[in-house]
C-alpha cells in the first residue's frame, strides 16, 4: 500500500463517515432531551428514499436533502407521538419505527430500483484543498461533507449556549425538576426529537444522493444502529462524534477496498467487521466511562400535562 492509497482511504473514510455523523448528531440532540430514539435505522431508510424521489422528480439535490429531512421529521414524529405524548415504552417504539421504516422504504422504493437521481459530487474546496494532506483528505468532498464539518460545533453551541438548548438538557437530565420549574417536557422533547429526526434524515439523504446516486434496497445497512452506538462512544458530546463517525467510515472504506482487491478472505467475514467493531467500541467506552455521561432522564417518560 503506497502513500496515495492511504490518502485515498482516509478521504473515503470521511465520505463514508458523513452519513453516520449526521445520524449520530441527530440522535445526540434527541437523547439530550431524554428521548431514546432507536428508530434511527428506519428513519434513515425512509429519508434516503424520500430524498431520492424528490431529487429525481425535481432535478434539485438540495430539495432532495430537504425532503430527506422532512421524512426524518415525519418518522421521528411517529416515535414522539407514541412515547412523548402517549407515554409508550421508548425502546419498543423505536424498534417499531425501525421495522416500519425499513418496510416502507423497500415497499415504496420498489419502482425506483436501479434508477439514478442528480446528487452531490465532490469538488475541491477553494484554497483549503491546497493544504497538503489535510486538503486531500478533508477538502475534496461534496457539499454535504463540508456542511457536516460545521454541524458538531453548531450543535454544541445550541445545547450549551442557548436558552432552548439549556431547557432541552434540563428536561433530559431532571424531568421532574424541569417540570417544577415550569418547563413543558412534552414541548421540549417534541422539539428535540423532531429536530434530531431532521438531522438523521439528512444522513439518510446523503446515502442516496451522495454515497450512491442510485436507488437500491438496504442502503441504510446498519448505519442507523452504528449511530446509536456512537452516541454512547461519544459520551453525548457532538465533537467526539466526529472521531467515531470517521473511525467507522474508515473501517467500511477499508473493507470495501479489501474486497475490491480480491483478497482471499471471504467477503462474508469482511462484512462482519463494522458490526464487530461496534461491539468492541461500545464495550470499551462503556468500561472507560464513569457511567454518568448519559442524560439521567434518558428513556424515562414524564406524566401527561393536564
Amino acid at each position, binding site marked *: 500500500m503506497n502513500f496515495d492509497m492511504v490518502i485515498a482511504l482516509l478521504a473515503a473514510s470521511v465520505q463514508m463517515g458523513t452519513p453516520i455523523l449526521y445520524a449520530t448528531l441527530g440522535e445526540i440532540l434527541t437523547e439530550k432531551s431524554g428521548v431514546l430514539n432507536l428508530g434511527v435505522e428506519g428513519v434513515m431508510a425512509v429519508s434516503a428514499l424520500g430524498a431520492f424521489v424528490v431529487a429525481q422528480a425535481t432535478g434539485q439535490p438540495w430539495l432532495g436533502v430537504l425532503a430527506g429531512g422532512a421524512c426524518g421529521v415525519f418518522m421521528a414524529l411517529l416515535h414522539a407521538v*407514541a412515547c412523548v405524548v402517549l407515554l409508550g415504552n421508548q425502546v419498543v417504539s423505536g424498534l417499531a419505527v425501525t421495522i416500519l421504516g425499513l*418496510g416502507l422504504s423497500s*415497499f415504496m422504493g420498489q419502482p425506483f430500483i436501479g434508477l439514478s437521481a442528480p446528487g452531490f459530487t465532490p469538488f475541491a474546496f477553494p484554497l483549503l484543498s491546497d493544504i497538503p494532506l489535510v486538503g486531500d483528505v478533508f477538502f475534496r468532498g461534496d457539499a454535504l461533507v463540508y456542511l457536516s464539518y460545521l454541524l458538531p460545533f453548531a450543535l454544541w453551541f445550541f445545547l450549551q449556549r442557548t436558552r432552548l438548548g439549556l431547557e432541552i438538557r434540563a428536561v433530559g437530565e431532571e424531568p421532574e425538576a424541569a417540570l417544577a420549574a415550569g418547563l413543558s417536557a412534552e414541548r421540549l422533547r417534541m422539539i428535540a426529537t423532531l429536530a434530531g429526526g431532521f438531522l438523521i434524515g439528512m444522513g439518510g439523504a446523503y446515502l442516496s444522493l451522495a454515497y450512491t446516486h442510485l436507488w437500491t434496497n438496504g442502503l441504510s445497512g446498519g448505519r442507523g444502529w452504528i449511530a446509536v452506538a456512537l452516541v*454512547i462512544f461519544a459520551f453525548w458530546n457532538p465533537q467526539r462524534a466526529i472521531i467515531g463517525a470517521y473511525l467507522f467510515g474508515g473501517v467500511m472504506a477499508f473493507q470495501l477496498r479489501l474486497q475490491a482487491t480480491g483478497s482471499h478472505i471471504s467477503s462474508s467475514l469482511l462484512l*462482519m467487521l463494522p458490526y464487530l467493531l*461496534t461491539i468492541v467500541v461500545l464495550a470499551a467506552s462503556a468500561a472507560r466511562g464513569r457511567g454518568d455521561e448519559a442524560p439521567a432522564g434518558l428513556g424515562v*417518560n414524564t406524566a*401527561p400535562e*393536564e
Partner: protein
Amino acid sequence: MALRVVKRRNPPAWSAAAILVCALVLSLGVSLALLAAIGKSPVHGLVALWNGSFGSLWAIEDALIKAAPIFLCSLGLAVAFRMQVWNIGAEGQFALGAMGATWAALTFPHAPSWVLLPLMLVYAGLLGAAWGAIPGLLKVKLKANEIITTLMLNYVAIFLLEYMVYGPWKDPASFGFPVTPEFTPSAVIPLLGVGRLHGGVLLCVFAGVLLWAFLRYTRLGYELKACGEGAKVAAYARMPYNRLVLFVLTASGAFAGVAGFVEVSASTGRLMTSIMAGYGYTAIIVAWIARLRPVPIALASFLLAALRVGVENIQLDMEVPAAFGDIMEGLILLTILSGQFFEQYKLVRKGAKNAPAPSASQETAP
C-alpha cells in the same frame, strides 16, 4: 374542542381487547391505503390477505408451522423483557441454533434419529445460549448496552451463516447454490400424523409448559419476576441482579437456538440463507403484544404467522413487495403501544360535567 387528559382509576377489563382490535383495524387500514398508493386494489388486497391467512386448511397449517419458531423465540424474549433486559438478538441466536443443529446433522449423518435429534437440539440450544451469553457478559462485566450488542450480533450471525453455506458446508452437488447437503432422514423432525404438522409444534407446547412451571414454582423464576423493576429494586431486595441478567440472556438465546433447530430440521431439511426470514424480530412484536405472558404469546405467534402467510399470498397474487409484511408488523406494534395509553388515561372535554376536578387528576407517572 379542547381536550384534557385524566388518569383512569380502574382500567376497564375489556380495554386490552379493545386496544388490540382498534390497533389491528388501524394498521390494516393504513397498510391497505399504502397498497392503493402504489396503484393496487385495496379490496383485492384484503381478500387475498384473508384467503391467504385463514381461507384454507393448508393456510392454517402453514401458519401453525411458521408460528413454532416465532413462539419459541418469543418465549425466551419474554423472560428477558420481564427483567427489562432488552434482548433484540433472537434473530442471531436463531441463526446460531440453526448452525448448531446443522453441525450435528452433518457430523453424525448416520446416527439413528433418537440419538441425532436430541443431539441437534443440544447443539442448537448451546450455540444459541452462547450467542446470548456474549452480550450478557459484556453487560455484566463492562456495562455495555445490550440493545446494541445483541443487535450487532444479529448482523455478525447472519454473515457467519452466509460464510458457512458459501464455504465450508457448501453442498458440492448444489450447482453453486449456497446450501448445505440435504440432511439424512434421521435428522428430520418427524410429522405428527395430523396434516403437515411436525414434532416441532409439540416441542413448543412442551417448552411453554416448562417455562410456565419454571416461572411459577422455582426460586429463580420468582426472583426474575421481582427484578422486573430493574437493578435498584433488585439490589434493595438483595437479589443477584448481574447473575439474573446473564441467566436471562443465556436462556433466551437457548430458546431462540432451539427455534433455529426446528426450522432447519423440520421446515427446510438443510441450512440455507433463506431461513433468516426475520422470525427473531417478529418474536419481539409477539412478546410485546402478548404482554410477556405464555398463553397470549402462543395466540399472538399464530396471529403474526398467519399474517406472514397472508402476505406471501398477496405477494404472489398481486406482485406486491415482501416488505408489505414488515410495514404491517411495524404498524401493529406502534399502534398497540400507543393504544395502551388509553388504558391508563382518558380524554375528557374541558369543562365537561362528569369530569373530576383537575386537582384530583394530577398524578405523577411512575
